[in-house]
């Protein structure tokens, strides 16, 4: 405790960001330090799990030191430790979990494990201090595409998921075939601004009428086929048009599905979460569509959309307040269904 506030220090290491944050009373960010490995993985065209794990190990202690310093607190002030324990790259996750457990043990601070997606959704509580559940959540990131019913601070029901590629994966693959490099999301978003979204029609895959699931592999293949066909015919490709048309097709599907889910749930509120939430086209499209349908839209600022530890601290705080504590035998999980996160 410091100045009467309950302090949570949180760790996040599920992919290629090593992050530690200190959060007061669950929603006030005192520090949010992120050490990204993105420059390393540009050379590889994607995240290499073994290399990510090695870098997490080398960075995490310094990142924690900085998080405490920037928050102007010491470990003695910390009341709770939160850590992402899944899902994610197992070798990467275990650096955060092993560190968090050792700190918890050495400093006698209780610890709770947090589901990565609960963290992403919780970023909205930080951005909007008055926001309360329930609401509809749309999670779009490198590894996830979900529509969820956020019933309470700790209970979340996924009602739609991708059946094949996550949005971020589709972006990365299309970016690769266009020779844009890694990561694909921001590169395509930027290039698409110079292109015509109606130049090429890629089929929107909406699946069954009553389903909130997604499928992006067909769209990805359609783009690859288009590029190959043009190449074989010796025709020049307008990369900006391809990027814009691909992005339009993705966003049409996501926006339509999520807004109709929000209408069915009837909360009148939808919160966006995950790295792809920074995509400007997605933000604009959803803003329009939500306005038309009388739904209030919540979008965290980019630093809270990317993988960070402040969001994990927020989710940990609410989990702890409901009486959940983990033991020092906590594990890390490459796969962790969101429905199971409460019991771990």
């Amino acid at each position, binding site marked *: 405790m410091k100045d009467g506030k309950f302090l949570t220090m949180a760790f996040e290491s599920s992919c290629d960001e090593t992050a530690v944050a200190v959060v007061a009373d669950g929603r006030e960010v005192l520090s949010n330090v992120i050490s990204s490995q993105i420059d390393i993985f*540009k*050379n*590889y*065209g*994607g995240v*290499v799990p*073994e*290399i990510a*794990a*090695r870098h997490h*190990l*080398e960075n*995490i*202690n*310094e990142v*924690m*030191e900085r998080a405490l310093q920037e928050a102007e607190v010491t*470990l003695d002030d910390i009341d709770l430790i939160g850590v992402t324990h899944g899902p994610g790259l197992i*070798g990467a996750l*275990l*650096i955060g*979990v*092993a*560190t968090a*457990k*050792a*700190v918890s*043990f*050495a*400093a006698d601070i209780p610890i709770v494990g947090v589901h990565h997606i609960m963290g992403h959704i919780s970023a909205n509580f930080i951005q909007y201090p008055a926001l309360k559940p329930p609401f509809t959540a749309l999670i779009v990131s490198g590894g996830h595409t979900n529509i969820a019913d956020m019933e309470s601070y700790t209970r979340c029901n996924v009602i739609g998921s991708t059946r094949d590629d996550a949005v971020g994966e589709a972006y990365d693959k299309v970016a*690769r075939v266009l*020779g*844009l*490099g890694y990561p694909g999301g921001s590169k395509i978003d930027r290039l698409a601004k110079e292109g015509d979204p109606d130049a090429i029609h890629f089929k929107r895959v909406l699946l069954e009428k009553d389903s909130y699931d997604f499928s992006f592999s067909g769209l990805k293949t359609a783009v690859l086929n288009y590029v190959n066909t043009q190449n074989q015919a010796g025709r020049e490709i307008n990369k900006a048009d391809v990027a814009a048309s691909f992005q339009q097709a993705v966003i049409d599907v996501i926006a339509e599905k999520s807004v109709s889910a929000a209408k069915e749930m009837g909360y009148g509120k939808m919160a966006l979460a995950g790295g792809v939430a920074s995509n400007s086209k997605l933000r604009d499209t959803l803003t329009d569509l939500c306005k038309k349908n009388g739904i209030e839209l919540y979008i965290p600022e980019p630093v809270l959309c990317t993988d960070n530890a402040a969001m994990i601290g927020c989710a940990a705080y609410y989990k702890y307040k409901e009486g959940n504590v983990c*033991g*020092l*035998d*906590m*594990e*890390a999980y490459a796969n962790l269904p969101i429905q199971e996160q409460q019991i771990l």
Partner: protein
Amino acid sequence: MYILAIETTGPLCSVALLKDNKILAIRESKEQKNHLRDLMPITGELLRDAAVDKKELNYIAVSKGPGSFTGIRIGVTTARALGQVLNIPVVPVGTLDGFCAKPQSTSGASGGRVTCGIINARRGQVYGIVKGFKPGGPYMLTDILEILRDEVLPKGLKAEFFGDGIDAYKETILKDLRDLGYELDKDFFFADEDYRYQDAGSVGLLAFEKIGKGEVLPAAEVFPDYMRKAEAQQKLEAGELPICKKPLI
């Protein structure tokens, strides 16, 4: 002076508490390859049973590798965090040196047995050491056998194998040495399973020696010794990573 020693590079993980160079207690995980889950609980039990508070610890000793990459990281990460929070130095110790520091290894040496530690590195390779003949490093198993054949056994010395390399390469070793006329349990030995693998006790003993020589580090300066680059990095450096052949815009 209390040393908490951590060993997570092998199939089981273990922790030991030493007072100077005396092992007070050792705890070992019961299940293989669940180091992340087991390490902190057995550490807590170890200290509680010995009635030593974590704040009384003076050093954290840790086996830095080689061994299972995941195992190494769990041990080194934990040692770094404990050292950082308890504000005490960390003593990194080579896993292969740990084999040579085992009591069975030192008593074996007095009977003319040369310690030969081997950790399975797959594809015919080991991380190995032949005490007094070959320093620790990544080798082909055949390189280790060659040293035994050419330099150790002809002198009438005997060899004793330690480590999980035995489990992977037992047949190859048997065939190779028997073909030369050497006999199992007479000229060469496979360490009993009770003391075949890495253990935290020897990590602590080695650390005690290193502390005497001032070979200790601040927690954040302790890194794993994988003895091998990540596969993707090897490929990248060799220009064999397919993605990198394309020009990036």
